[in-house]
């Protein structure tokens, strides 16, 4: 299984994500934002957390217009898998591959701590390794994680079982306590909490491992 992790100026979780993917068995390549092609045969693209372009204009907005994004878009439209974490989620909403917007946290604070999440659906390759309704703890570290989406889209997300993770308690003002959502084909996931920072017991928890293990068991490159 092959994974590519995109790297933007200001990404700071790219290596953590690569470590978590490698631990799950992926052959991981780092891909610079100015590249125009993904490595051939990539199964999963990771869009990492950080502060790409210093959050100028809007979080994720400039990164979402960089050259590699056209390749990511083609990958996703062809049914490829992608995961965007934190700033990566913001980038995916800015590209339109996922619906909604991550606005400034309702309490205006930068929130940096482990939070409890509910796995809201196990019907995806990202979440199939969890028990239905499972509670997991992932760290969050964001200023712009307040998920906002038009009412009709929210209804579609709920109706199509596309909410992947919910905060157990309201954290940042997100509508319906949404922490992560899936694309229509369930192969693109965006989430604000950091599963890659919860992939090793030695680093304070391993609840994130099942997510990467689920992706690694796709077998789509066979």
């Amino acid at each position, binding site marked *: 299984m092959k994974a590519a992790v995109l790297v933007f100026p200001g990404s700071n979780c790219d290596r953590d994500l690569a470590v978590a993917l490698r631990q799950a068995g992926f052959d991981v390549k780092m891909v610079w934002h100015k590249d125009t092609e993904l490595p051939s045969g990539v199964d999963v693209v990771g869009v990492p957390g950080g502060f790409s372009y210093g959050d100028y204009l809007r979080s994720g907005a400039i990164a979402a217009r960089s050259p590699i994004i056209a390749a990511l878009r083609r990958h996703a439209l062809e049914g490829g898998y992608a995961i965007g974490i934190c700033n990566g989620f913001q980038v995916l909403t800015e590209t339109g591959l996922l619906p909604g917007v991550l606005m400034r*946290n309702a309490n205006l604070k930068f929130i940096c701590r482990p939070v409890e999440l509910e796995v809201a659906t196990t019907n995806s390759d990202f979440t199939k390794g969890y028990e239905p309704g499972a509670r997991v703890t992932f760290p969050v570290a964001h200023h712009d994680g307040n998920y906002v989406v038009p009412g009709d889209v929210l209804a579609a997300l709920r109706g199509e079982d596309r909410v992947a993770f919910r905060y157990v308690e309201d954290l940042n003002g997100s509508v319906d306590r949404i922490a992560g959502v899936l694309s229509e084909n369930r192969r693109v996931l965006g989430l604000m909490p950091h599963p890659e920072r919860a992939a090793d017991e030695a680093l304070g928890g391993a609840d994130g491992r099942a997510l990467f293990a689920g992706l690694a068991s796709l077998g789509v490159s066979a």
Partner: protein
Amino acid sequence: MKARVHIMLKTGVLDPQGEAVRHALGSLGFEGVSSVRQGKVIELELSETDPAKAEAEVARMCEALLANTVIERYDVELV
């Protein structure tokens, strides 16, 4: 030609920063401010000399990058 783009959150989208500014104004003793909405102003220097073309081009820039039309609306002003 210069264009000025005003970007504001759409009506009904909660603006937590504007709310914080409203509270701060109240604590400074400014009374009677019932609402504060915060937005962005972006100024562009354009080589285009035809106002209609310039306005259309800037509108395309707004749709492509400058505004996130899920939550923001924009106005283009040529100055």
